[in-house]
């Protein structure tokens, strides 16, 4: 392997590359899905390949292949350089890179039970039990349960001398119940929507999810939502559960702080950002209570690794400190524009994709309130959780999110279930209205496995750790 990857680097530099890196990746996945008592699918996927990224004449080129023959390695390396030379014909500003010390390192996700070693029969038994526990309500027409695991072995090597060997293990699962009424559909999910919850962890993580125990509640709530009152519209005090708040962080903090978006290189697809380089240290992003970090080192995070896909070490850096905007997510190229080192957020979906600035784990640091104390302190409000739909503008300001369920809070007591909760806001005003954050006991890390960005589109696994938090004067609407 070392010889093959070195061959790619040597061919690229001989063809004129001033910098080259190669990523080899071997990814295996397994998923088991049950639907209404039947096995919908048991599937395994395996993909292996390599990608060569080069700088030549001040421009980037990238080529990739699944063929490891020496002839193909030479062809791909040469193709990457040819692509870079083509890029350079439509480029006036050469790429410069912030430096990074090349390392030789190894990283493996800490885990106790290899999820790929767990017998399929055991996994299927768990899924069957969870599925059965979901199907106790007559109005629940779709009971869906899922178990999934991934193992990614990747090697990064660069013409600067880096050699980094990493193995990332992820697993998780979830259940959901869809209740169908005369003219409406209601869904409840656990631990979260859009595929359950996923972590960099072993099978012990799935065991701790307690899918079977939670399933009856999930089904009962889905059914109850069909006849629940609708959440009243208007300006309200809202407590967001940590699952929904994870998505709020993702859309309104994670994405706008990606420096490539700020610099305009994602405008054609995902959009830009309301942030500018001049906002660093100046813009009030939220209330004094709001502290957000990008942390690629935190346990269980889907955005946790040893080194990013440019060989920059995983690290923890502040994005927002006491409400003040203090940091971007950067790459070697974008960090150079700020005369800073990269904070290690370049990640590629696969061997066949170019690394882009992606979230790692974007975490809201816990506050001082117990969750019970937060609710008890709320005279009149709404508790909402579990995302159902999401939409935000191309500068990451105007957002509108709908949740699966809400609960009325009256005189400090969490009461009746409400349906179709939806809220909207403008990012800095919303975060500025945060007046209380629950403590570390209520803090949880959530995995978002489907963050989309780039052309061709890449779906990335990212993480968000947060406790529930309270926001004042939130515009709560109704999904008509």
């Amino acid at each position, binding site marked *: 392997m070392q010889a093959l990857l070195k061959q790619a680097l040597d061919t690229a530099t001989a063809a004129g590359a001033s910098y080259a890196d190669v990523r080899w990746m071997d990814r295996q996945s397994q998923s088991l899905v049950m639907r209404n008592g039947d096995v919908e699918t048991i599937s395994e996927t395996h993909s292996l390949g390599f990608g060569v990224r080069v700088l030549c004449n001040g421009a980037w080129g990238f080529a990739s292949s699944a063929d490891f023959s020496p002839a193909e390695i030479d062809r791909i390396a040469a193709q990457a350089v040819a692509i870079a030379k083509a890029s350079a014909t439509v480029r006036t500003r050469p790429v410069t890179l912030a430096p990074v010390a090349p390392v030789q390192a190894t990283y493996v996700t800490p885990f106790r039970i290899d999820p790929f070693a767990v017998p399929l029969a055991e996994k299927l038994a768990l899924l069957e039990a969870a599925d059965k526990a979901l199907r106790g309500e007559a109005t629940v027409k779709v009971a869906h349960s899922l178990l999934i695991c991934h193992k990614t072995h990747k090697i990064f090597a660069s013409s600067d001398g880096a050699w980094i060997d990493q193995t990332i293990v992820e697993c998780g699962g979830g259940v959901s119940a869809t209740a169908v009424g005369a003219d409406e559909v209601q869904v409840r999910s656990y631990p979260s929507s859009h595929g359950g919850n996923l972590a960099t962890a072993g099978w012990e993580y799935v065991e701790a999810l307690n899918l079977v125990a939670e399933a009856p509640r999930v089904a009962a709530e889905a059914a109850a939502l069909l006849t629940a009152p609708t959440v009243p519209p208007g300006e309200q005090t809202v407590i967001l559960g940590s699952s929904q708040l994870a998505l709020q962080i993702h859309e309104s903090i994670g994405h706008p702080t990606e420096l490539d978006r700020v610099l305009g290189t994602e405008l054609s697809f995902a959009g830009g950002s309301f942030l500018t380089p001049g906002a660093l240290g100046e813009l009030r992003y939220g209330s004094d209570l709001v502290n957000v970090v990008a942390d690629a080192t935190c346990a269980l995070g889907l955005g946790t690794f040893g080194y990013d896909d440019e060989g920059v070490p995983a690290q923890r850096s502040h994005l927002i400190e006491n409400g003040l905007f203090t940091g971007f997510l950067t790459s070697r190229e974008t960090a150079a524009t700020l005369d800073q080192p990269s904070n290690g957020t370049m990640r590629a979906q696969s061997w066949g994709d170019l690394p882009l600035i992606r979230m790692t784990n974007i975490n809201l640091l816990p506050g001082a309130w117990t969750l019970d104390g937060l609710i008890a302190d709320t005279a009149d409000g709404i508790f909402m959780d579990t995302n159902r739909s999401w939409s935000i*503008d191309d500068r990451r300001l105007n957002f509108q999110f709908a949740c699966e369920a809400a609960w009325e809070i009256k005189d400090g007591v969490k009461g009746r279930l409400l349906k179709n909760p939806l809220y909207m806001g403008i990012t800095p005003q919303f975060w500025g209205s945060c007046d209380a954050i629950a403590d570390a006991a209520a803090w949880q890390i959530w995995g978002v496995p489907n963050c989309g960005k780039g052309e061709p589109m890449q779906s990335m696994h990212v993480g968000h750790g947060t406790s529930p938090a309270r926001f004042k004067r939130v515009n709560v609407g109704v*999904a008509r």
Partner: protein
Amino acid sequence: MISETQALELLDGIIKLGGGDEVEAVLAGMDRGLTRYADNQIHQNVATTDASLILRVAVGKRVGVVTTNRLDPDSVRAALRRARELASLQPENPFFVGFADPQPIPPMVAAHPSTLAATAQDRAELIHVLAGMMRSEGLSACGRVSTTSTLRAIVNSRGVRAVAPMSEADMVAVVSSQDGGTGYASRVSPSFAALGVESLVSEVIETTRLAEDPVEVPIGAYDVVLSPYAAATLVEYLSHAGFGALSVLEGRSFLSDRMGYKITGDRISIWDDARDDEMPGEPFDWEGVPTRRVPLITGGTAMGMAHDVTTAARDEAVSTGHAQPSPNGEGPAPTHLVMAPGESQLADLVKQVKKGLLVTRFHYTNLVDPKRTLATGLTRDGLLIIADGEIVGAARNLRFTESILDAFSRCEGLTAETRIGGEFGTRVRAPGMLLRQFRFNGQAGS
């Protein structure tokens, strides 16, 4: 990329190895080049070559699925064995009725030589032309040019045996001016040579200039003229809300129990056709069933849904050729939607608006309530103010939250010209539309 002959040889060999009651082997080859540019400069330029083998093995009514890009004989044999093991471990699925039976596949040319031959230098030259035109206008452009060649081959133990090369090229430009104007235009074709950079540039510059100096307008209900790009987005999300048979059969779709009923305006006819002349096409689906035109809504009446072999059996129907690649939990889905055009020009529709807006495109559209086709999203890259039948200025972006079918029921005009839009694997060819009283409920922040 793997050749047609190599692909069929590989798949024929897999079927011969047998192993389960039934075997389906699909090969998906891809050769893709994509060049991105921002501020009139190329900043990302990538090429990927890959081929994936998707194996389904059925042991009775139990199906195991293995996907791999390792195509050497040992890896293929191991994948076949593993798919059989996965099948053997599970209980029977009563809905599985077997893989597709062979049907004649009408011939179709789905690959264009200019796309198959396009290089990074060709894409760079196109962007060089575009960037030069933008610089001469004092404008900044970002976007992409992509060329993709694919090969789909499928052989199963029932006798399905099909192979087709396909191609797709596209070009996108998002342009901004120093006076706050932004515009958008795109082109999609099986043929790289047919993309037409000059007409795209002309279109997007016109929009950008019209969109300069935008002002805030109040939220509320407006008569809107949707460009074909914006209309395509609404059709795409209508599809996500429930043209696929699985959602219909499970009661989750707006079509559930509504087939044959009037569900939207008379002017609205939507069908799916992977053989549409203007879109990059597919001669057969991922089960080897030939594609054909399938009416979904005709004159406002619900007419049909997208089926694969499994959902068709549940519904006592036949597959419409809409199977998606395994493993697939979402069921069959239309991927080449067409909305019937009208006879007007976009300017004719504008003339019919006393006070309203022209929407170039929507951004980050999402379904809030699929059963009621309630969607939300924002305008982007050219929201223009219409007064007394003329475009008089530009507006800052707004958020809409609206039922797509309700909005379509208020359609009072369609253009003759269509454009191809759609994202995330779904292509939509749609006309421009005049919709009365379309609801905007938020301002994009400033």
